[in-house]
């Protein structure tokens, strides 16, 4: 096992998959000569050349469509959005082309494409650069949505995403790129559509994904000091969402808290709560609570931003509430 940053884990995944299958190519802003806006694609241009690591003009809609068109005729594009905030412009291609093509064509054209980039807030990037997109994307049938929170998960899931013959939305995090973790040196993939119990416990289930999984783990550490054993579940894939793993846990602990980026209304947590109330109604001793971003565009000031985001303290408070400890 090597200790690798999340960024390098992604780089490894890209490199390995591009070596493995020459139909895979990377396209996006600054992915080539600049070595990647966040250095995720470092060294790839040198290794694979201009045709396979393509720098684009600032045209998200355009190059997202280019990716879909190329996928229609057999290539396997990895389209990078410098951040998912800019992908809003490209959503027409993601939704109306990529997601729906297979269905509209009666099964003739599947789109084996990956759209990836950093999602959600970083530090003081302000309102337009801090949005979390997972619930918009997870709403659409025809898409798969993945949000890894650790280097191990990032590499394994990106490899699977690239090999998947469907459009996969891959949500990374700027705050995650420097996070270090253990990554096997040998070949491995992580299957899409399966959640993981990252920590076992029997008092409460904390469900999370993406960069928030680290918040959940921190909260679990704090709770452990008070003798509260939290079970932490990392959803890993948001669509299709592995509700069975969640249900199995809640049936055991009888209470759940979701920690998510994104705002309250129709967030991923709302969907998790729906599954839990359906699957575990008779096992719930308390309502399911969610810890999410405050319902405001992200402010710039440091203290306000901190107050807007979910954190370990807020998670601990929610857990204590479902345990009826004040």
């Amino acid at each position, binding site marked *: 096992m090597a200790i690798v940053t999340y960024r390098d884990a992604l780089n490894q995944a890209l490199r390995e998959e591009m070596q493995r299958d020459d139909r895979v190519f990377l396209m996006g802003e600054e992915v080539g000569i600049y070595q990647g806006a966040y250095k995720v694609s470092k060294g790839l241009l040198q290794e694979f050349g201009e045709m396979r690591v393509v720098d684009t003009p600032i045209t998200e809609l355009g190059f997202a469509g280019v990716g879909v068109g190329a996928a229609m005729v057999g290539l396997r594009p990895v389209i990078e959005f410098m951040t998912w905030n800019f992908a809003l412009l490209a959503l027409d291609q993601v939704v109306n082309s990529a997601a729906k093509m297979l269905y509209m064509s009666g099964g003739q054209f599947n789109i084996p494409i990956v759209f990836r980039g950093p999602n959600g807030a970083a530090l003081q990037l302000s309102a337009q650069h801090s949005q979390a997109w997972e619930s918009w994307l997870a709403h659409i049938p025809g898409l798969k949505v993945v949000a890894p929170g650790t280097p191990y998960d990032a590499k394994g899931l990106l490899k699977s995403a690239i090999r998947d013959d469907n459009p996969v939305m891959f949500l990374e995090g700027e705050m995650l790129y420097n996070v270090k973790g253990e990554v096997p040196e040998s070949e491995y993939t992580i299957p899409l559509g399966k959640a993981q119990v990252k920590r076992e416990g029997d008092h409460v289930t904390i469900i999370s994904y993406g960069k928030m999984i680290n918040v959940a783990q921190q909260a679990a550490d704090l709770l452990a000091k008070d003798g509260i054993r939290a079970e932490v579940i990392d959803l890993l894939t948001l669509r299709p969402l592995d509700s069975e793993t969640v249900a199995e846990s809640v049936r055991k602990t*009888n209470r759940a808290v979701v920690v998510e980026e994104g705002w309250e209304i129709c967030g991923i947590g709302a969907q998790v709560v729906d599954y839990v109330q359906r699957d575990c*109604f*008779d*096992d*719930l*001793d*308390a309502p399911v609570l969610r810890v999410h971003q405050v319902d405001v565009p992200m402010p710039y000031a440091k203290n306000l931003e901190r107050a807007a985001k979910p954190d370990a303290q807020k998670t601990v408070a929610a857990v204590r509430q479902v345990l*009826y400890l004040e």
Partner: protein
Amino acid sequence: MATKVTMEALSPTMEEGRLVKWQKNEGDAIAKGDVLAEVETDKAVMELVARGAGVLRARLAAEGDTRPVGELLAVIAEKDENIDAILKKAPAVPASSASSVSSTVVPQPPASTPPSHPNGGGRARSSPLARRLASSRGLDLGTLQGTGPGGRIIRRDIDAAASTELSGAPTAAAARTAAPVVRAAGDSEDIPLTQIRKTIARRLAESNGPIPTFFLTADFDLTSVRELRAQMIAMGDEFKVSYNDILIKAIATALSQHPEVNAHWLGDSIRRHHRVHLGMAVAVEDGLITPIITDADTKRISEIARESRELAKRARERKLVPEEYTGATCTVSNLGMFGIDEFTAIINPPEVAIFAVGAVGDVPVVVDGTLAIRTRVRITMSCDHRAVDGATGARFMQTLRRLIENPLMLVF
């Protein structure tokens, strides 16, 4: 203008009531029609409703107190209104209890609570898990005090209830179950009388005392009834009836043909009823109650089956309203399910008769000089001799036999 809240006669036979639970606190705003408290009558738990608006200025009884009908329980008045005059006339000072009656609004039930009693009338808030656990452990949610928000019964309340000792922990809003006040080390238990038990005791002692009762017992052959029942069941689930349902129909029909038995003794007259409203004795947790099947003689057997099931269920859930258990013209009691061959039931005054149905079973009988096995049931009729003579009763039993042994007669 102040409103006096008194103990009301919430059932026709009620003479006193027990205040189970206040729903409003002193200082709360009251609108006309608000539920002030839950009061246990002799039959069920009823809601005491405000008849005026204002502020609840005084609560004069504590949860658990028994007060006679007509006694002052509380006063509703304007915030600043002087109610001294009313209070002076009020009876005894409220019994001291653990319940914190304060003038500040306390929306949650206090942390340590007095023993609470069966709460059948109100709906206990509970988490789904608590409900499931209570059900599987045979706990009545109504007997528990919830420590969750809004009085929600949650898992720890169920867990605490399962243990017989009071928890010593500070937040032990340990739920207390109903009643047992342990005196000695375990040799015996004194169980205070609930209202229902008091009523049963009083009324049926009246029965056995002054009423000259005699008993008529007869065996009835159920061969035809068994066939009828089998045929009905074969027709589908909605026609699934029990022997008791068919017997109720037979007894009701016989009563319609014998108005002298379908009667009430009024002391200076006998009232013969033209409609048959048959009471059906149902065992409930600490006693019995008799919900009524109205016009039982005119109802189809399947309807009787449905109604009797429904009424029995509601009786056990303490959800009957007074109209459902008062006004019977006659009563049937069935202990067959307990394997009782025969028994004598005690008449419910002012009725003049009651029928005790034993177990249905296959027994050896003599038919045409040989031994045969027949399905039989034994029914005992208790008669108030003041209104029903021996021959009258016997003639009734003859009619009943004709109906039971030729159930087609139920249709004609």
